[in-house]
Protein backbone atom coordinates (compact mmCIF):
# COMPACT_ATOMS: atom_id res chain seq x y z
CA UNK A 1 0.00 0.00 0.00
CA UNK A 2 1.00 3.64 -0.11
CA UNK A 3 3.02 4.81 -3.07
CA UNK A 4 5.99 3.12 -4.65
CA UNK A 5 8.17 4.16 -7.55
CA UNK A 6 10.67 1.72 -9.01
CA UNK A 7 13.50 2.50 -11.39
CA UNK A 8 12.06 5.78 -12.68
CA UNK A 9 13.96 7.46 -15.51
CA UNK A 10 13.09 10.70 -17.26
CA UNK A 11 15.07 12.84 -19.69
CA UNK A 12 14.24 16.29 -20.98
CA UNK A 13 16.49 16.59 -24.00
CA UNK A 14 20.02 16.40 -22.62
CA UNK A 15 18.91 16.82 -19.05
CA UNK A 16 18.50 13.68 -16.94
CA UNK A 17 15.71 14.74 -14.60
CA UNK A 18 15.29 11.33 -12.97
CA UNK A 19 18.08 8.77 -12.90
CA UNK A 20 16.89 5.33 -11.77
CA UNK A 21 14.84 6.64 -8.85
CA UNK A 22 13.07 4.29 -6.47
CA UNK A 23 11.09 5.37 -3.42
CA UNK A 24 8.63 3.77 -1.02
CA UNK A 25 6.05 5.92 0.70
CA UNK A 26 4.20 4.08 3.48
CA UNK A 27 0.41 4.20 3.59
CA UNK A 28 -0.90 7.16 5.55
CA UNK A 29 2.51 8.79 5.96
CA UNK A 30 3.52 12.39 5.36
CA UNK A 31 6.69 12.36 3.31
CA UNK A 32 8.80 15.23 2.04
CA UNK A 33 10.79 15.17 -1.19
CA UNK A 34 13.66 17.49 -0.38
CA UNK A 35 16.29 18.79 -2.75
CA UNK A 36 17.70 21.83 -4.54
CA UNK A 37 16.07 23.06 -7.72
CA UNK A 38 16.77 20.80 -10.65
CA UNK A 39 17.14 17.78 -8.37
CA UNK A 40 14.16 16.04 -9.98
CA UNK A 41 11.84 16.18 -6.98
CA UNK A 42 9.01 17.96 -8.82
CA UNK A 43 9.39 15.70 -11.85
CA UNK A 44 9.07 12.68 -9.57
CA UNK A 45 5.93 14.10 -7.96
CA UNK A 46 4.41 14.93 -11.34
CA UNK A 47 5.22 11.42 -12.58
CA UNK A 48 3.35 9.96 -9.60
CA UNK A 49 0.36 12.19 -10.46
CA UNK A 50 0.46 11.24 -14.14
CA UNK A 51 1.25 14.80 -15.25
CA UNK A 52 4.60 13.63 -16.61
CA UNK A 53 5.27 10.40 -18.49
CA UNK A 54 8.29 8.39 -17.38
CA UNK A 55 10.75 7.10 -19.95
CA UNK A 56 10.90 3.91 -17.89
CA UNK A 57 9.95 2.77 -14.43
CA UNK A 58 6.91 1.69 -12.44
CA UNK A 59 4.51 3.77 -10.37
CA UNK A 60 2.27 1.93 -7.93
CA UNK A 61 -0.46 3.70 -5.97
CA UNK A 62 -2.18 1.72 -3.19
CA UNK A 63 -1.07 -1.57 -4.67
CA UNK A 64 -2.39 -0.71 -8.13
CA UNK A 65 -0.08 -0.25 -11.10
CA UNK A 66 -0.63 3.34 -12.20
CA UNK A 67 2.15 3.53 -14.81
CA UNK A 68 0.83 4.99 -18.05
CA UNK A 69 -2.59 5.76 -16.59
CA UNK A 70 -3.79 9.28 -17.40
CA UNK A 71 -3.85 11.74 -14.50
CA UNK A 72 -7.63 11.87 -14.41
CA UNK A 73 -7.83 8.16 -13.55
CA UNK A 74 -5.19 8.03 -10.82
CA UNK A 75 -7.31 9.39 -8.00
CA UNK A 76 -4.62 11.74 -6.75
CA UNK A 77 -5.10 15.17 -5.26
CA UNK A 78 -2.51 17.61 -6.57
CA UNK A 79 -1.66 21.04 -5.20
CA UNK A 80 0.45 23.35 -7.37
CA UNK A 81 3.00 25.92 -6.24
CA UNK A 82 1.13 28.73 -7.98
CA UNK A 83 -2.29 27.45 -6.84
CA UNK A 84 -3.65 26.76 -10.36
CA UNK A 85 -6.92 28.33 -9.21
CA UNK A 86 -9.66 28.30 -11.82
CA UNK A 87 -9.73 32.06 -12.23
CA UNK A 88 -13.14 32.27 -13.87
CA UNK A 89 -14.87 30.31 -11.11
CA UNK A 90 -15.87 31.24 -7.57
CA UNK A 91 -14.26 29.55 -4.58
CA UNK A 92 -17.35 27.36 -4.33
CA UNK A 93 -17.15 26.28 -7.98
CA UNK A 94 -13.42 25.64 -7.70
CA UNK A 95 -13.93 23.23 -4.81
CA UNK A 96 -17.01 21.69 -6.44
CA UNK A 97 -15.23 21.09 -9.77
CA UNK A 98 -14.19 17.48 -9.16
CA UNK A 99 -17.60 16.63 -7.71
CA UNK A 100 -19.42 18.09 -10.72
CA UNK A 101 -17.19 16.03 -13.01
CA UNK A 102 -18.25 13.01 -10.97
CA UNK A 103 -21.90 14.08 -11.40
CA UNK A 104 -22.72 14.39 -7.72
CA UNK A 105 -26.18 15.82 -7.10
CA UNK A 106 -26.48 19.42 -5.99
CA UNK A 107 -27.39 18.89 -2.35
CA UNK A 108 -24.58 16.41 -1.74
CA UNK A 109 -22.06 18.62 -3.58
CA UNK A 110 -23.08 21.66 -1.59
CA UNK A 111 -22.77 19.82 1.72
CA UNK A 112 -19.33 18.46 0.82
CA UNK A 113 -18.04 21.82 -0.45
CA UNK A 114 -19.11 23.62 2.69
CA UNK A 115 -17.63 20.91 4.86
CA UNK A 116 -14.27 21.38 3.10
CA UNK A 117 -14.41 25.16 3.10
CA UNK A 118 -14.94 24.95 6.83
CA UNK A 119 -11.96 22.63 7.15
CA UNK A 120 -9.71 25.12 5.33
CA UNK A 121 -11.30 28.08 7.12
CA UNK A 122 -12.76 29.71 4.03
CA UNK A 123 -16.44 29.12 4.73
CA UNK A 124 -17.37 32.80 4.49
CA UNK A 125 -15.66 33.27 1.13
CA UNK A 126 -17.50 30.74 -1.05
CA UNK A 127 -18.80 33.44 -3.42
CA UNK A 128 -15.46 35.16 -3.98
CA UNK A 129 -13.27 34.80 -7.03
CA UNK A 130 -9.64 33.67 -6.64
CA UNK A 131 -8.43 37.17 -7.55
CA UNK A 132 -10.13 38.42 -4.39
CA UNK A 133 -8.19 36.05 -2.12
CA UNK A 134 -4.74 36.31 -0.57
CA UNK A 135 -2.03 33.82 -1.54
CA UNK A 136 -2.53 31.73 1.59
CA UNK A 137 -6.29 31.66 1.05
CA UNK A 138 -5.85 30.62 -2.57
CA UNK A 139 -3.60 27.76 -1.57
CA UNK A 140 -6.07 26.60 1.08
CA UNK A 141 -8.79 26.73 -1.57
CA UNK A 142 -6.61 24.62 -3.87
CA UNK A 143 -6.12 22.14 -1.06
CA UNK A 144 -9.88 21.94 -0.41
CA UNK A 145 -10.42 21.41 -4.14
CA UNK A 146 -7.92 18.55 -4.17
CA UNK A 147 -9.39 16.96 -1.04
CA UNK A 148 -13.01 17.26 -2.17
CA UNK A 149 -12.86 14.17 -4.34
CA UNK A 150 -11.38 12.08 -1.51
CA UNK A 151 -8.10 11.29 -3.28
CA UNK A 152 -6.17 8.13 -2.48
CA UNK A 153 -3.02 10.21 -2.15
CA UNK A 154 -2.31 13.90 -1.80
CA UNK A 155 0.63 15.42 -3.69
CA UNK A 156 1.84 18.96 -3.01
CA UNK A 157 4.40 20.62 -5.27
CA UNK A 158 6.19 23.35 -3.27
CA UNK A 159 2.80 24.31 -1.86
CA UNK A 160 4.10 27.19 0.24
CA UNK A 161 6.85 28.33 -2.10
CA UNK A 162 5.04 31.44 -3.30
CA UNK A 163 3.93 32.62 0.14
CA UNK A 164 5.62 34.95 2.57
CA UNK A 165 7.45 33.61 5.62
CA UNK A 166 4.74 34.16 8.22
CA UNK A 167 1.92 32.59 6.18
CA UNK A 168 4.28 29.75 5.30
CA UNK A 169 4.87 28.87 8.92
CA UNK A 170 1.17 28.96 9.74
CA UNK A 171 0.25 26.76 6.80
CA UNK A 172 2.99 24.31 7.71
CA UNK A 173 1.55 23.69 11.16
CA UNK A 174 -1.89 23.61 9.66
CA UNK A 175 -0.92 21.00 7.06
CA UNK A 176 0.64 18.80 9.73
CA UNK A 177 -2.52 18.97 11.81
CA UNK A 178 -4.67 18.32 8.78
CA UNK A 179 -2.67 15.23 7.95
CA UNK A 180 -3.07 13.98 11.51
CA UNK A 181 -6.84 14.25 11.09
CA UNK A 182 -7.16 12.83 7.57
CA UNK A 183 -4.34 10.28 7.37
CA UNK A 184 -4.28 10.39 3.59
CA UNK A 185 -0.89 9.35 2.18
CA UNK A 186 0.81 12.66 1.43
CA UNK A 187 3.98 13.63 -0.43
CA UNK A 188 5.13 17.18 -0.53
CA UNK A 189 7.99 18.70 -2.42
CA UNK A 190 10.17 21.41 -0.93
CA UNK A 191 13.65 22.84 -1.21
CA UNK A 192 13.53 24.12 2.36
CA UNK A 193 15.05 21.61 4.79
CA UNK A 194 13.54 23.32 7.82
CA UNK A 195 10.08 23.07 6.28
CA UNK A 196 10.62 19.42 5.42
CA UNK A 197 11.81 18.54 8.93
CA UNK A 198 9.03 20.54 10.52
CA UNK A 199 6.19 18.99 8.54
CA UNK A 200 7.16 15.52 7.41
CA UNK A 201 7.75 12.29 9.26
CA UNK A 202 9.78 10.83 6.43
CA UNK A 203 12.21 12.66 4.19
CA UNK A 204 13.64 11.73 0.82
CA UNK A 205 16.65 13.82 -0.14
CA UNK A 206 17.20 14.16 -3.89
CA UNK A 207 20.05 15.60 -5.90
CA UNK A 208 20.79 15.58 -9.63
CA UNK A 209 17.95 13.21 -10.41
CA UNK A 210 18.90 10.63 -7.79
CA UNK A 211 17.78 9.76 -4.28
CA UNK A 212 20.67 10.49 -1.94
CA UNK A 213 19.09 9.21 1.25
CA UNK A 214 15.73 8.66 2.88
CA UNK A 215 14.76 8.43 6.51
CA UNK A 216 13.45 10.45 9.41
CA UNK A 217 14.73 13.94 10.12
CA UNK A 218 16.89 12.62 12.97
CA UNK A 219 18.41 9.88 10.85
CA UNK A 220 19.34 12.30 8.09
CA UNK A 221 20.79 14.79 10.50
CA UNK A 222 22.70 12.33 12.64
CA UNK A 223 23.73 9.80 10.02
CA UNK A 224 23.94 11.54 6.67
CA UNK A 225 24.92 9.10 3.96
CA UNK A 226 27.18 11.55 2.18
CA UNK A 227 28.53 15.06 2.01
CA UNK A 228 25.55 16.32 0.03
CA UNK A 229 22.98 15.19 2.57
CA UNK A 230 25.08 16.44 5.45
CA UNK A 231 25.36 19.92 4.01
CA UNK A 232 21.79 20.03 2.73
CA UNK A 233 19.98 19.14 5.95
CA UNK A 234 21.98 21.51 8.14
CA UNK A 235 24.86 23.94 8.34
CA UNK A 236 28.31 22.48 7.95
CA UNK A 237 31.98 23.49 8.07
CA UNK A 238 34.58 21.73 6.02
CA UNK A 239 37.95 20.98 7.61
CA UNK A 240 40.09 19.10 5.11
CA UNK A 241 38.20 15.85 4.42
CA UNK A 242 36.03 16.29 7.45
CA UNK A 243 32.67 17.92 8.02
CA UNK A 244 31.67 19.51 11.29
CA UNK A 245 28.38 21.07 12.31
CA UNK A 246 28.83 24.60 13.71
CA UNK A 247 27.31 23.53 17.03
CA UNK A 248 29.89 20.73 17.22
CA UNK A 249 32.71 23.28 17.18
CA UNK A 250 34.05 24.12 20.59
CA UNK A 251 35.90 27.42 20.92
CA UNK A 252 38.64 27.53 23.57
CA UNK A 253 41.38 29.98 24.49
CA UNK A 254 44.17 27.48 25.11
CA UNK A 255 45.73 25.28 22.43
CA UNK A 256 46.17 21.56 22.83
CA UNK A 257 46.91 18.69 20.45
CA UNK A 258 43.30 18.51 19.24
CA UNK A 259 42.73 22.17 18.45
CA UNK A 260 43.29 24.32 15.43
CA UNK A 261 44.19 27.96 15.55
CA UNK A 262 41.87 30.54 14.07
CA UNK A 263 41.45 34.28 13.86
CA UNK A 264 38.08 35.58 15.02
CA UNK A 265 36.79 37.67 12.14
CA UNK A 266 33.25 38.43 13.07
CA UNK A 267 30.89 37.82 15.97
CA UNK A 268 27.19 37.96 15.10
CA UNK A 269 24.61 37.81 17.85
CA UNK A 270 21.37 36.23 16.69
CA UNK A 271 19.29 36.35 19.85
CA UNK A 272 20.13 33.37 22.00
CA UNK A 273 22.75 31.96 19.67
CA UNK A 274 25.97 33.57 18.60
CA UNK A 275 27.74 33.01 15.34
CA UNK A 276 31.53 33.23 15.56
CA UNK A 277 33.28 33.36 12.22
CA UNK A 278 36.93 32.39 12.11
CA UNK A 279 39.58 32.02 9.49
CA UNK A 280 42.10 29.20 9.97
CA UNK A 281 45.84 29.41 9.27
CA UNK A 282 45.33 27.68 5.89
CA UNK A 283 42.71 30.27 4.91
CA UNK A 284 39.67 28.08 5.50
CA UNK A 285 36.65 30.05 6.71
CA UNK A 286 34.55 28.32 9.34
CA UNK A 287 31.99 29.30 11.92
CA UNK A 288 31.02 28.04 15.31
CA UNK A 289 27.64 28.30 16.97
CA UNK A 290 27.88 29.35 20.61
CA UNK A 291 25.42 30.43 23.24
CA UNK A 292 25.53 33.93 24.66
CA UNK A 293 26.73 32.55 27.99
CA UNK A 294 29.64 30.77 26.33
CA UNK A 295 30.61 33.92 24.48
CA UNK A 296 30.57 35.97 27.68
CA UNK A 297 32.61 33.38 29.54
CA UNK A 298 35.26 33.35 26.78
CA UNK A 299 35.21 37.13 26.42
CA UNK A 300 35.85 36.72 22.71
CA UNK A 301 36.52 39.80 20.62
CA UNK A 302 36.84 40.24 16.91
CA UNK A 303 40.44 40.16 15.75
CA UNK A 304 41.80 37.88 18.46
CA UNK A 305 43.21 34.37 18.15
CA UNK A 306 41.11 31.46 19.42
CA UNK A 307 41.31 27.68 19.18
CA UNK A 308 38.75 25.36 17.67
CA UNK A 309 38.09 21.86 18.89
CA UNK A 310 35.63 19.80 16.84
CA UNK A 311 33.50 17.64 19.14
CA UNK A 312 32.40 15.36 16.37
CA UNK A 313 33.21 15.28 12.71
CA UNK A 314 32.36 13.15 9.74
CA UNK A 315 34.35 11.95 6.83
CA UNK A 316 32.77 10.32 3.81
CA UNK A 317 35.96 8.88 2.36
CA UNK A 318 36.25 6.09 4.88
CA UNK A 319 33.33 4.68 6.79
CA UNK A 320 34.08 5.66 10.39
CA UNK A 321 34.00 9.18 11.70
CA UNK A 322 37.14 10.68 13.06
CA UNK A 323 38.56 14.06 13.90
CA UNK A 324 40.56 16.42 11.75
CA UNK A 325 44.23 16.27 10.97
CA UNK A 326 46.66 16.34 13.80
CA UNK A 327 44.33 14.71 16.25
CA UNK A 328 45.45 11.72 18.19
CA UNK A 329 42.57 10.89 20.47
CA UNK A 330 39.44 9.42 18.98
CA UNK A 331 36.18 11.21 19.62
CA UNK A 332 33.33 9.84 21.65
CA UNK A 333 30.55 7.84 20.10
CA UNK A 334 29.18 9.66 17.11
CA UNK A 335 25.60 8.68 17.86
CA UNK A 336 25.68 9.56 21.50
CA UNK A 337 26.33 12.79 23.28
CA UNK A 338 24.77 15.66 21.49
CA UNK A 339 22.53 13.63 19.21
CA UNK A 340 19.24 15.21 18.33
CA UNK A 341 20.33 18.81 18.34
CA UNK A 342 18.19 20.89 16.04
CA UNK A 343 19.59 22.14 12.77
CA UNK A 344 21.08 25.57 12.85
CA UNK A 345 18.95 27.76 10.65
Amino acid at each position, binding site marked *: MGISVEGANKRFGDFQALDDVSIEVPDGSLTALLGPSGSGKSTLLRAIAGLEDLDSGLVTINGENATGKPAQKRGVGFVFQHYAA*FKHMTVYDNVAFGLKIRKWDKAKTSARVHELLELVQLDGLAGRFPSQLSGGQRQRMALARALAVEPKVLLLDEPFGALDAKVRKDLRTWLRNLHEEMHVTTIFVTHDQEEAMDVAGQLVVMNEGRVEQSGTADELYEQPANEFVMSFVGEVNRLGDHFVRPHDMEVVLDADERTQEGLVQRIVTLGFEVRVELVLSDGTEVWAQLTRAELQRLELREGQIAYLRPIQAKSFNGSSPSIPDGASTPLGSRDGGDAGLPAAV
Partner: protein
Amino acid sequence: MSANPASRWGLRFLGLGYLTLLLLIPLVMIFYKTFEDGISPPLDAVTSPDGLHALKLSLLMVAISVPLNTIFGVGCALLLVRHKTKLNPVIDAIINLPFAVSPIVIGLSLYLLYGVGGWFSFIGEEGFKILFAVPGMVLASIFVSLPFVVRETVPVLQEIGTDQEQAASTLGANGWQTFWKITLPSIRWGVAYGVVLTTARVLGEFGAVTIVSGSISGQTQTLPLFVEKQYANFNSTGAYGASLVLALLALATLFAMNMLKRKEDA
Protein backbone atom coordinates in the same frame (compact mmCIF):
# COMPACT_ATOMS: atom_id res chain seq x y z
CA MET B 1 9.77 62.75 -19.87
CA SER B 2 6.32 62.69 -18.33
CA ALA B 3 7.43 65.46 -15.98
CA ASN B 4 7.70 67.88 -18.86
CA PRO B 5 4.20 69.23 -19.63
CA ALA B 6 5.24 70.62 -23.02
CA SER B 7 6.41 67.29 -24.36
CA ARG B 8 3.42 65.53 -22.81
CA TRP B 9 0.98 67.84 -24.57
CA GLY B 10 3.03 67.61 -27.71
CA LEU B 11 2.75 63.81 -27.71
CA ARG B 12 -0.99 63.95 -27.09
CA PHE B 13 -1.47 66.43 -29.86
CA LEU B 14 0.59 64.35 -32.23
CA GLY B 15 -1.24 61.10 -31.39
CA LEU B 16 -4.72 62.60 -31.56
CA GLY B 17 -3.88 64.62 -34.63
CA TYR B 18 -2.64 61.58 -36.46
CA LEU B 19 -5.77 59.60 -35.62
CA THR B 20 -8.07 62.49 -36.50
CA LEU B 21 -6.46 63.20 -39.83
CA LEU B 22 -6.15 59.61 -40.98
CA LEU B 23 -9.15 57.86 -39.43
CA LEU B 24 -11.76 60.19 -38.05
CA ILE B 25 -12.06 62.85 -40.76
CA PRO B 26 -12.58 60.37 -43.62
CA LEU B 27 -15.27 58.51 -41.63
CA VAL B 28 -17.01 61.73 -40.65
CA MET B 29 -16.92 62.80 -44.29
CA ILE B 30 -18.79 59.62 -45.29
CA PHE B 31 -21.37 60.37 -42.65
CA TYR B 32 -21.73 63.94 -43.79
CA LYS B 33 -21.88 63.17 -47.51
CA THR B 34 -24.46 60.41 -46.99
CA PHE B 35 -26.99 62.72 -45.44
CA GLU B 36 -26.11 65.83 -47.44
CA ASP B 37 -29.41 65.64 -49.34
CA GLY B 38 -31.51 64.26 -46.54
CA ILE B 39 -32.16 60.74 -45.41
CA SER B 40 -34.20 59.38 -48.33
CA PRO B 41 -31.62 59.09 -51.17
CA PRO B 42 -29.22 56.86 -49.23
CA LEU B 43 -32.11 54.96 -47.70
CA ASP B 44 -33.57 54.29 -51.16
CA ALA B 45 -30.21 53.03 -52.42
CA VAL B 46 -29.65 50.75 -49.47
CA THR B 47 -33.19 49.37 -49.46
CA SER B 48 -33.26 48.78 -53.22
CA PRO B 49 -33.53 45.05 -54.10
CA ASP B 50 -29.85 44.93 -55.09
CA GLY B 51 -28.79 46.77 -51.96
CA LEU B 52 -30.78 44.49 -49.66
CA HIS B 53 -29.47 41.45 -51.47
CA ALA B 54 -25.91 42.69 -51.03
CA LEU B 55 -26.50 43.18 -47.30
CA LYS B 56 -27.97 39.68 -46.96
CA LEU B 57 -25.08 38.17 -48.90
CA SER B 58 -22.51 39.96 -46.72
CA LEU B 59 -24.22 38.66 -43.59
CA LEU B 60 -24.29 35.18 -45.11
CA MET B 61 -20.51 35.38 -45.67
CA VAL B 62 -20.09 36.27 -42.02
CA ALA B 63 -22.47 33.53 -40.88
CA ILE B 64 -20.48 30.86 -42.72
CA SER B 65 -16.86 32.06 -42.54
CA VAL B 66 -16.73 33.30 -38.95
CA PRO B 67 -17.84 30.08 -37.21
CA LEU B 68 -15.58 27.98 -39.43
CA ASN B 69 -12.55 30.18 -38.84
CA THR B 70 -13.31 30.34 -35.12
CA ILE B 71 -13.35 26.57 -34.73
CA PHE B 72 -10.30 26.16 -36.93
CA GLY B 73 -8.53 29.08 -35.25
CA VAL B 74 -8.97 27.78 -31.70
CA GLY B 75 -7.96 24.28 -32.75
CA CYS B 76 -4.93 25.58 -34.56
CA ALA B 77 -3.89 27.78 -31.62
CA LEU B 78 -4.15 24.77 -29.30
CA LEU B 79 -1.98 22.77 -31.68
CA LEU B 80 0.62 25.53 -31.91
CA VAL B 81 0.83 26.21 -28.17
CA ARG B 82 0.06 22.89 -26.49
CA HIS B 83 1.50 20.33 -28.89
CA LYS B 84 4.98 21.32 -29.89
CA THR B 85 6.07 19.54 -33.06
CA LYS B 86 8.72 20.22 -35.67
CA LEU B 87 5.99 21.24 -38.13
CA ASN B 88 4.75 24.08 -35.92
CA PRO B 89 6.95 26.84 -37.40
CA VAL B 90 5.73 25.82 -40.87
CA ILE B 91 2.09 25.88 -39.80
CA ASP B 92 2.69 29.21 -38.11
CA ALA B 93 4.11 30.68 -41.29
CA ILE B 94 1.30 29.32 -43.47
CA ILE B 95 -1.31 30.86 -41.17
CA ASN B 96 0.27 34.26 -41.76
CA LEU B 97 0.00 33.93 -45.55
CA PRO B 98 -3.33 35.76 -45.85
CA PHE B 99 -1.72 38.74 -44.09
CA ALA B 100 1.15 38.78 -46.53
CA VAL B 101 -0.59 38.06 -49.80
CA SER B 102 -2.68 40.74 -51.48
CA PRO B 103 -6.39 39.78 -51.52
CA ILE B 104 -6.53 40.19 -55.26
CA VAL B 105 -3.81 37.56 -55.63
CA ILE B 106 -5.83 35.26 -53.39
CA GLY B 107 -8.83 35.82 -55.67
CA LEU B 108 -6.78 35.07 -58.75
CA SER B 109 -5.34 31.89 -57.26
CA LEU B 110 -8.83 30.62 -56.46
CA TYR B 111 -9.88 31.53 -59.98
CA LEU B 112 -6.98 29.51 -61.39
CA LEU B 113 -7.75 26.55 -59.17
CA TYR B 114 -11.51 26.31 -59.75
CA GLY B 115 -11.80 28.00 -63.17
CA VAL B 116 -11.65 26.39 -66.57
CA GLY B 117 -8.59 24.12 -66.78
CA GLY B 118 -7.86 24.40 -63.04
CA TRP B 119 -7.13 21.36 -60.84
CA PHE B 120 -10.50 21.54 -59.14
CA SER B 121 -12.50 22.65 -62.18
CA PHE B 122 -14.22 19.24 -62.28
CA ILE B 123 -16.31 20.25 -59.23
CA GLY B 124 -17.92 23.04 -61.24
CA GLU B 125 -18.36 20.74 -64.21
CA GLU B 126 -20.26 18.29 -61.97
CA GLY B 127 -22.87 21.03 -61.52
CA PHE B 128 -21.74 22.47 -58.18
CA LYS B 129 -20.93 26.00 -59.13
CA ILE B 130 -18.01 27.51 -57.22
CA LEU B 131 -16.85 30.47 -59.24
CA PHE B 132 -19.27 33.38 -59.69
CA ALA B 133 -21.39 31.85 -56.92
CA VAL B 134 -21.64 31.80 -53.15
CA PRO B 135 -19.23 28.85 -52.54
CA GLY B 136 -16.34 30.64 -54.21
CA MET B 137 -17.06 33.81 -52.28
CA VAL B 138 -17.12 31.83 -49.03
CA LEU B 139 -13.76 30.28 -49.92
CA ALA B 140 -12.28 33.72 -50.55
CA SER B 141 -13.75 35.13 -47.32
CA ILE B 142 -12.40 32.23 -45.27
CA PHE B 143 -8.97 32.61 -46.84
CA VAL B 144 -8.55 36.31 -46.15
CA SER B 145 -9.91 36.15 -42.57
CA LEU B 146 -8.20 32.95 -41.48
CA PRO B 147 -5.35 34.25 -39.25
CA PHE B 148 -7.27 36.50 -36.84
CA VAL B 149 -8.65 33.99 -34.34
CA VAL B 150 -5.36 32.06 -34.29
CA ARG B 151 -3.27 35.19 -33.79
CA GLU B 152 -5.50 36.51 -30.99
CA THR B 153 -5.79 33.15 -29.21
CA VAL B 154 -2.15 32.00 -29.23
CA PRO B 155 -0.80 34.65 -26.81
CA VAL B 156 -3.70 34.15 -24.40
CA LEU B 157 -3.15 30.40 -24.38
CA GLN B 158 0.54 30.95 -23.72
CA GLU B 159 -0.24 33.33 -20.90
CA ILE B 160 -2.71 31.12 -19.01
CA GLY B 161 -0.21 28.24 -19.00
CA THR B 162 -1.11 24.62 -18.33
CA ASP B 163 -1.50 24.62 -14.55
CA GLN B 164 -5.28 25.02 -14.58
CA GLU B 165 -5.69 22.35 -17.24
CA GLN B 166 -3.48 19.96 -15.29
CA ALA B 167 -5.37 20.69 -12.09
CA ALA B 168 -8.61 19.85 -13.90
CA SER B 169 -7.18 16.55 -15.12
CA THR B 170 -6.05 15.52 -11.63
CA LEU B 171 -9.62 16.26 -10.50
CA GLY B 172 -10.92 13.72 -12.99
CA ALA B 173 -11.77 15.85 -16.03
CA ASN B 174 -11.07 14.31 -19.43
CA GLY B 175 -9.64 16.33 -22.33
CA TRP B 176 -13.01 17.41 -23.65
CA GLN B 177 -14.31 18.49 -20.23
CA THR B 178 -11.09 20.35 -19.53
CA PHE B 179 -11.40 22.19 -22.83
CA TRP B 180 -15.01 23.30 -22.30
CA LYS B 181 -14.84 24.05 -18.60
CA ILE B 182 -11.31 25.40 -18.18
CA THR B 183 -9.48 26.26 -21.40
CA LEU B 184 -12.27 27.90 -23.38
CA PRO B 185 -13.54 30.11 -20.52
CA SER B 186 -9.96 31.21 -19.88
CA ILE B 187 -9.27 32.23 -23.48
CA ARG B 188 -12.72 33.57 -24.31
CA TRP B 189 -11.69 37.22 -24.63
CA GLY B 190 -8.86 36.40 -26.99
CA VAL B 191 -11.25 34.32 -29.09
CA ALA B 192 -13.94 37.01 -28.95
CA TYR B 193 -11.51 39.64 -30.15
CA GLY B 194 -10.44 37.32 -32.96
CA VAL B 195 -14.10 36.84 -33.90
CA VAL B 196 -14.66 40.60 -34.05
CA LEU B 197 -11.63 41.08 -36.30
CA THR B 198 -12.67 38.13 -38.49
CA THR B 199 -16.18 39.55 -38.84
CA ALA B 200 -14.87 42.98 -39.76
CA ARG B 201 -12.50 41.48 -42.29
CA VAL B 202 -15.19 39.33 -43.94
CA LEU B 203 -17.63 42.23 -44.08
CA GLY B 204 -15.09 44.52 -45.65
CA GLU B 205 -13.42 42.08 -48.03
CA PHE B 206 -13.29 43.41 -51.56
CA GLY B 207 -10.35 42.26 -53.69
CA ALA B 208 -10.52 38.48 -53.47
CA VAL B 209 -14.32 38.40 -53.58
CA THR B 210 -14.41 40.68 -56.66
CA ILE B 211 -12.43 38.18 -58.70
CA VAL B 212 -14.28 35.00 -57.71
CA SER B 213 -17.79 36.49 -57.64
CA GLY B 214 -17.86 38.41 -60.87
CA SER B 215 -19.86 41.03 -58.91
CA ILE B 216 -23.23 40.33 -60.51
CA SER B 217 -25.84 42.74 -59.15
CA GLY B 218 -28.55 41.02 -57.13
CA GLN B 219 -26.67 37.72 -57.31
CA THR B 220 -23.04 37.73 -56.26
CA GLN B 221 -22.62 41.20 -54.88
CA THR B 222 -21.64 41.76 -51.27
CA LEU B 223 -21.92 45.20 -49.69
CA PRO B 224 -18.39 46.35 -50.58
CA LEU B 225 -18.92 45.25 -54.20
CA PHE B 226 -22.27 47.05 -54.18
CA VAL B 227 -20.55 50.20 -52.92
CA GLU B 228 -18.00 50.00 -55.71
CA LYS B 229 -20.68 49.45 -58.38
CA GLN B 230 -22.76 52.39 -57.13
CA TYR B 231 -19.68 54.56 -57.10
CA ALA B 232 -18.66 53.50 -60.61
CA ASN B 233 -22.21 54.31 -61.80
CA PHE B 234 -21.92 57.85 -60.39
CA ASN B 235 -24.48 57.13 -57.66
CA SER B 236 -22.26 58.42 -54.91
CA THR B 237 -25.12 58.86 -52.44
CA GLY B 238 -25.93 55.17 -52.76
CA ALA B 239 -22.26 54.32 -52.33
CA TYR B 240 -21.99 56.46 -49.19
CA GLY B 241 -25.20 55.00 -47.79
CA ALA B 242 -24.01 51.44 -48.24
CA SER B 243 -20.60 52.38 -46.82
CA LEU B 244 -22.30 53.75 -43.77
CA VAL B 245 -24.20 50.47 -43.32
CA LEU B 246 -20.89 48.62 -43.47
CA ALA B 247 -19.32 50.91 -40.91
CA LEU B 248 -22.34 50.54 -38.62
CA LEU B 249 -22.18 46.75 -38.84
CA ALA B 250 -18.55 46.81 -37.82
CA LEU B 251 -19.29 49.19 -34.95
CA ALA B 252 -22.17 46.97 -33.81
CA THR B 253 -19.81 43.98 -33.62
CA LEU B 254 -17.31 45.92 -31.53
CA PHE B 255 -20.09 47.25 -29.33
CA ALA B 256 -21.54 43.78 -28.78
CA MET B 257 -18.17 42.52 -27.60
CA ASN B 258 -17.70 45.46 -25.27
CA MET B 259 -21.12 44.91 -23.75
CA LEU B 260 -20.40 41.23 -23.16
CA LYS B 261 -17.08 42.05 -21.59
CA ARG B 262 -18.56 44.68 -19.32
CA LYS B 263 -21.24 42.29 -18.16
CA GLU B 264 -18.50 39.79 -17.39
CA ASP B 265 -16.37 42.24 -15.44
CA ALA B 266 -19.27 43.50 -13.35
